[in-house]
């Protein structure tokens, strides 16, 4: 609105009254989303005042709002002929070109105005992936919850990662890292036997490579082979005693096998390495509960709830506490926890999965 008012004031100072009236009418029509009427008015402005750059910008912008990007290009280029430094024209032209797939042509215009978002998107298309990641990260720092930015940063990072892996596979196909990369791909595709084979080969080539045991353990966990998963997580934890994730995974693998005491010891260790991780606290409570140590279970789940209040994990903790209190005969406390569980289940995206009762009434 301020920009439109300034533009109007500026127009009234520099162009003829008739052109200024059309300019005003164009801005008003555009504001009401009457794009065809606005285009007619802006065209008249450009006919009456062919050296008035903002008239062309108005026309270009309206075309873009109408999603007619091809038609926007000519007036925006004309605006830049009149005023080569006009930032709004550069920005709009950059996006108009980008929208039509002309990313390389869009980049100079976006660079001119340092539009990090547009630049990042354009650079993905031109394969300038490190630059794209840097620009999108900078843009995201200003707008951290922007869905499009989050998506494009993820895409740029993924492509950059793929590019790097492709180079690795091409240059060193028999290296441990190449086998690791292949294994990770198979894991994503849930092709567990192939993933296992590649991880095994990577381990054979470089047994001390960080994360290999952890990742192989994940493969076994994904295939429900908990004893093998335990073995790999244990190997990782031995190689890297300070790796909290490895120790946590070891604890959960033990827990899945019902080895509560061992699981608990590892989870306590994980909690010391990285305190207050909600997942660790939940599993720690579960292990304690399996051992019949309800006081510790209650303590850990309550601790979790002091950290997380509205998450699915918090819902699980409420549910677990409800069961614990029910067994202790603390009916009111059990009911309260169950209500909290149901509240969170209802409010979460997992409500379908909550198993909430379905009433016929």
């Amino acid at each position, binding site marked *: 609105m301020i920009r439109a008012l300034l533009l109007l004031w500026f127009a009234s100072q520099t162009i003829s009254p008739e052109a200024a009236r059309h300019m005003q009418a164009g801005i008003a029509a555009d504001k009401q989303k009457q794009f065809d009427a606005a285009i007619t008015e802006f065209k008249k402005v450009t006919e009456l005042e062919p050296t008035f750059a903002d008239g062309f910008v108005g026309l270009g912008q309206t075309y873009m709002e109408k999603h007619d990007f091809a038609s926007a290009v000519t007036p925006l280029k004309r605006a830049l002929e009149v005023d080569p430094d006009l930032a709004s024209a550069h920005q709009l032209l950059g996006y108009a070109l980008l929208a039509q797939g002309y990313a390389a042509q869009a980049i100079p215009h976006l660079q001119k105005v340092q539009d990090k978002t547009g630049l990042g998107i354009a650079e993905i298309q031109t394969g300038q992936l490190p630059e794209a990641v840097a620009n999108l990260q900078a843009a995201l720092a200003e707008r951290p919850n922007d869905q499009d930015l989050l998506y494009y940063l993820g895409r740029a990072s993924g492509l950059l990662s793929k590019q790097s892996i492709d180079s690795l596979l091409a240059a060193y196909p028999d290296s441990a890292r190449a086998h690791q990369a292949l294994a990770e791909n198979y894991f994503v595709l*849930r092709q567990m036997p192939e993933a296992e084979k590649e991880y095994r080969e990577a381990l054979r080539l470089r047994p001390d490579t960080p994360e290999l045991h952890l990742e192989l353990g994940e493969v076994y966990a994904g295939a*429900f082979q908990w004893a093998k998963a335990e073995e790999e997580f244990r190997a990782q934890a031995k190689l890297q005693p300070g790796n909290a994730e490895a120790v946590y995974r070891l604890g959960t693998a033990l*827990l*899945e096998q019902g080895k509560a005491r061992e699981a608990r010891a590892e989870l306590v260790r994980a909690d010391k390495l990285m305190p207050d991780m909600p997942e660790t606290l939940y599993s720690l409570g579960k292990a304690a509960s399996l051992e019949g140590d309800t006081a510790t279970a209650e303590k850990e789940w309550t601790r979790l709830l002091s950290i997380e209040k509205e998450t699915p994990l918090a819902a699980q903790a*409420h549910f677990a506490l409800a069961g614990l209190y029910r067994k202790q005969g603390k009916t009111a406390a059990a009911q309260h926890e*169950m209500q909290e569980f149901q509240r969170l289940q209802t409010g979460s995206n997992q409500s379908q*999965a909550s*198993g909430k009762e379905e*009433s016929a009434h």
Partner: protein
Amino acid sequence: MSNLLLRLSILVTLVLAATAMVAPVFDVNLPHGIDFTLQNSPTPQKYLIETMPGGVALLDYNNDGLLDIFLVNGGRITSPMQMPENFDRQNPRYWNRLYRQNKDGSFTDVTQQAGLANAGDGNYGMGVAVGDYDNDGYPDLFVTNYGKNVLYHNNGDGTFTDVTAKAGVAGGGWSVSAGFFDYDNDGKLDLFVTRYMDWDTKHNKDCGGNYHTYCPPEEFPATTNFLYHNNGDGTFTDVSQRSGIAAKKGRALGVAFADYDEDGFTDIFVANDGMQQYLFHNNGNGTFTELGLEAGAALSDDGRRLSGMGVVFQDYDNDGRPDVIVTELPREIYGVYHNDGGGSFSYRSLETGLGVLSSGSSGWGVGLEDFDNDGWKDLFVAQGHVLDNVEHIDPSLHYLELPLVAINHNGRFERVDSGSTTPVAGRGAAFGDLNNDGWEDVVMTYLGGHPQVFLNHGGKLHWLVISLRGTRSNRDGFGARVKVNGQTRFATSAGSYASASDKRLHFGLGTAESAKVDLVWPSGIHQTLNDVHADQFLEVREPEKP
């Protein structure tokens, strides 16, 4: 020399250790005379019913002392299904089948002469329940269908009569499992029927994108179950609404019965698919209250929903209280709900070892039976994924699986060789002593194939098989709590998935050569038998007076 002795000593120790753990050895085969094939008729349309049949029942329909086998068939499905729906059930290929056991262990197909050939063209078969609803001493059959259910009265002369219309139990929609039980202790067996969802072939959906899979249950509306009260004159009254059963919609597959809170009235556990499980507490006044969540028997220990399919409601840890085991899809692990007493359950899947045994499997029919006669009930689960193309979606899962046989060691289950080497899409499972040798056998159905019969090779430990003869209670004695040398069984033929098991109660006695038998009949009568010899089939008649 000393080295040789040491090696011999180790060898002897190993041999002793191996023999100390008595594992059941099943001989898996198809007895002579059984030529049934479960025709589920899979189509590219992925009609949901295709992946859900079919039940099996073990019953002695002619009271000759030998268990006979009744198998439920699916039907023919066209692609796409023609309207009005016709599953070609008059075609012998799609008949349900009754096989009478002969003295030599072979079977004879008596379907036609028994009057069981006509399953109704509009019915696609699902499951079966067995119970003597009219107390005439002959087990009757109730067959569940997608369509109308059918009650066959056993005439006692080797034939059955379709009495559905008179009895008023046809229901409708998509029924799966059913069971006879006496919820009001009036001495007459009532009937519970699970229904899966509000679905028909016209409103089927195709899920899975390019993979074209059967849709998950959440894609279709939930529906209610049926409870029929036995009027004692050959008719039943639908009390689903009045009893409170119909107040809860679900996606029910399995059902099992036991008196979990020892109040003298049989309760109902319903395995629901993709949602919470239902525990219907019998209020003792003809009504039920669903208490699954409150009792801690509705969800996993993480509060997650379960894909409940089959269910068994028996005491796995010999504490005298009936526990619940529910079979599920992969990544959920079979739910073990331990009955803690006081109306409360705790989730014990991990402690019992089922986390490791089941997290990658899909379970259907399930039974807790003492296969090795050591005094602890073991676990059998018919397995196989719902989706016939699941490997394309997740290569770590399998459509065809071997059944799970897990031996119970003081409440913890350990897998043993099932004896089967051919993975199948297992569904129904029924349990009983087919050859009357005192060792429990299993009959399992699977999609598209012959049933598998798991004959227990047996061993040296002792056993006792009890037949109940109710007088004041229902004649089958369903609902009785029978305790033998510290083990407890709840008399029922229901449980598993869409199947009905031998109504006789089997107990492994270990090395004990005699037993003490304590019974609590549904009438409330207590009965104790001391110094009962092992290794016999014992009929226990309910005293006429308390």
